């Protein structure tokens, strides 16, 4: 048998993918949502494995109530997480959008005005 490694297996499907929505982005978002849910499921399984292998056990995790300092630490982490995930939404709250100045600035840079 040859020593050379095999090339990767095909990932693309022969046969055009149907369009289910008039806006193709919706079909892509649904596919991303399914893939993302799969990854969340994998992480949940991995945590469950750690709970089992560490000897802590699933019941002990379910029964655990964090004390106040632990809860404060988690609250700060959750706030930071939400700020990162919803940054695209919240950026507009920080002030009016920088309207129209972009290409004007580029033009000025290209013309040697800046």
């Amino acid at each position, binding site marked *: *048998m*040859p020593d050379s*490694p*095999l*090339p*990767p*297996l*095909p*990932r*693309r*499907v*022969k*046969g055009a*993918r*149907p369009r*289910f*929505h008039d806006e193709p982005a*919706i*079909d892509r978002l*649904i*596919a991303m*949502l*399914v*893939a993302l*849910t*799969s990854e969340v*499921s*994998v992480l949940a*399984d*991995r945590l469950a*494995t750690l709970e089992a292998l560490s000897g802590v056990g699933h019941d002990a995790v379910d029964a655990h109530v964090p004390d106040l300092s632990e809860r404060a630490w988690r609250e700060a982490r959750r706030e930071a997480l939400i700020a990162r995930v919803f940054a695209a939404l919240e950026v507009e709250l920080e002030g009016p959008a920088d309207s129209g100045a972009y290409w004007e600035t580029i033009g000025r840079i290209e013309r040697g005005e800046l």
Partner: protein
Amino acid sequence: MKRIAEQEGHAGLALGDHDDRARADFAFTLRNRVTSTWMPGTRTIFDRRAADAFAARHGRRPQSPAEIREAMDADPWYRFYLSARRASQETIWAAVIPPAERLGRVAMPAAPRGALHLDSSVEPPAYVGAIDIHCMPGGYLADRGEGDTGAGAVYDRGVYLYMSGLMGGRNDAVGQLAVAFLKSRLPEFAPRRILDMGCGVGHATLPWATAFPSADVTGVDVGAALLRHAHVRAESFGVAVRFVQADAEATGLPDGHFDLVTSSILLHETSTRGLPAILAESRRLLAPGGVMLHVDQPRFDDDDPWATFLQENETHYNNEPFWRRYRSLDLEAQARAAGFARVELATLAADVVRQSQNNAADDPKARARGFLALLAFRDA
């Protein structure tokens, strides 16, 4: 929750590491959700509003499969369902390809009971490679050369997940159905040589070898990587089968060589041109008094336009190019045209059939549906 049987391990099975298995488990659970909740939900949407909306536009309720399709295509829930269902199908392959890829080159068994005969000069029929059936990337023909079992390893896991384990631990429910039917219909029949056409990774081939242990069993398929996997798998289970790379339309095997020529869920993956050629080849290969048995999907029930609409979705959305046309064919007439004078049809019912036909498990009409057994006899 469906999990009738865990897939039975064997030397070629690619389960991968923790996260690969977790991804496969997710694909399994999501597929269950699709078949158990979402698919029946299409009927709920039809009854609740899609049929009425069609009636408001046309002045009458949808009657034919095409009108049902028009009614459903206009519904936003249904479109979202189709899109998510397609993504769920892609999730199955995305879960099983990486561990299959990591197998690398697989060594063939050192002292096999059976055999593997590959022939790179075999020209596969055009329909096999035109569209990747079931959306499996690379399809049945992907072959990366010596030691490549990838397409077989991917298919082996994919079938188990797609059918929610209803195919049994060895993915062999259809083969078992076929064997049980033949043994009850022809209890005295003891074939010495058996040919399984379009055998793939041997899911339906091994039951024949187990049921008739003194028979020589041959499986033919055009996919080299499928056959390598089939060989590794059969040897790992201790079952002797000779796997040969050949086209079922023209196998190159000798005239009159087999007492039984069979296939399981092959015909619907061929073509309007290929199917009659396979039946004619079956007849050529049979010894006098020999038996042909092809088990596959039945004809559409023309009295049930809703069921027909659901069935046709396989051609519309799941890369089943021949499914829709195949299911309007008169197979009995096709067998007679291939030269068989004695032809019988029978219905084989089982859970696995209902799932493969997109039927809800609790649909009372679906309980009577089954696979079609096309049985024909070569004159003695």
